[in-house]
């Protein structure tokens, strides 16, 4: 296991290994997404109170979960890059930020679309919604910081510190509905007793959550590989990858032959 992780930390091995993983990850994402959408939009019965509007949950809840997961991933990768000086970790943290920001945006937007018919308002300033909005600003701040600092090492270090500081917001988002009176309802699936959701409605949710998770890793690796090539442009393996053949993009050809 450690040997495997060690190999992954080497940019060259990372590039080649993940090149082979991406098609599989993409296929698994598509499969989960198709099944989840079919079960969630077609098979699952309408809710006893919310009718069919509850189906928004199948995109809202996975997006919200992932917005938290990606942030933790980004902060952890940032910390590893900061402490162990690992370039691979920097690369992953930087690549995760835009994906996390778009999940956060989706969670807020689909929540507003759900809130209008159910609550009677698009937006309220309660603790859950406000802390999720702060998460979006943290992501945007991180991205702005990356763009503002020229040197990738310095940018990654500054970004990691911002991400680590901002991670105090994560437990606040999660527990906001329990610590304070909020308009947003309490947790459904992550309760310690059994989930307060009928199995026919829970399965699509879990499938969609899995699909979003797989999707994240797919696009994360896609982003990280390009980022890696540019950052490692002075190393021999990248040079060889690109200058073997001047007519065809050899990087692409190389992937096709394992």
């Amino acid at each position, binding site marked *: 296991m450690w040997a495997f992780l060690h190999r992954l930390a080497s940019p060259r091995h990372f590039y080649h290994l993940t090149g082979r993983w991406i098609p599989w990850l993409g296929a698994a994402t598509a499969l989960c997404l198709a099944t989840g959408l079919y079960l969630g939009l077609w098979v699952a*019965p*309408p*809710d*006893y*109170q*919310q009718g069919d*509007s*509850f189906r928004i*949950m199948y995109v809202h809840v996975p997006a919200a979960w992932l917005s938290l997961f990606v942030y933790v991933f980004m902060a952890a990768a940032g*910390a590893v890059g*900061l*402490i*162990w*000086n690992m370039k691979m970790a920097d690369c992953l943290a930087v690549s995760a930020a835009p994906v996390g920001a778009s999940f956060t945006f989706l969670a807020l937007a689909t929540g507003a679309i759900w809130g209008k*018919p*159910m*609550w*009677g*308002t698009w937006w*309220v*300033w*309660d*603790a859950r919604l406000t802390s999720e909005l702060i998460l979006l600003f943290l992501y945007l701040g991180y991205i702005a910081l990356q763009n503002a600092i020229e040197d990738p090492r310095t940018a990654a270090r500054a970004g990691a*510190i911002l991400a*680590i*500081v901002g*991670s*105090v917001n994560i437990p*606040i988002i999660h527990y906001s509905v329990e610590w*304070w*009176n*909020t*308009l947003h*309802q*309490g*947790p*459904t699936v992550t*309760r310690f007793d059994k989930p*307060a*959701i*009928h199995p*026919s*409605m829970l399965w699509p949710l879990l499938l969609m959550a899995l699909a979003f998770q797989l999707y994240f890793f797919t696009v994360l690796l896609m982003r990280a590989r390009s980022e890696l090539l540019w950052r490692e442009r002075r190393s021999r393996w990248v040079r060889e990858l690109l200058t073997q053949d001047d007519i065809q993009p050899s990087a692409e050809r190389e992937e096709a032959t394992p």
Partner: protein
Amino acid sequence: MTPRQRRMLWVGLIVAGVSAATFLALAAFQKNLLYFYTPSQIAAGEAPTGYAFRVGGLVKKGSVHREPDSLAVRFTLTDGAAEVTVFYDGILPDLFREGQGIIAIGRLQPDGRFQATQVLAKHDENYMPPEVAEALERSGKLPPVDDFRRMGR
């Protein structure tokens, strides 16, 4: 101490410092972070009288009176321990019904009634098909909307 350990220590100190600062700030603003007051808090005189605030509770069964030919409505909000009567004139959200958790925004009148300018529905964390809900209701096992009871304590 190696440079790596020093960096680790720095990261740990940042996390601890920011957590402590956030905890103190949140504890100081605890009151302002409450999105709404419960009928019990109003009964105990904790709610503001001078300006608009929000009250949250369950719509008491059988308490909803609608004026004919207008949108005006009157209902009682309860959290299991105390009650408050709410007056409202406007469009109610789809989820508004008796037994439902709702939030009303408005002012407390001198006579203790609540004049709302906006009513929001708070849906709970339970999701089930209508048939299951009916079966549960018949057997008396429909999960109580316990959100407001929990907060009322």
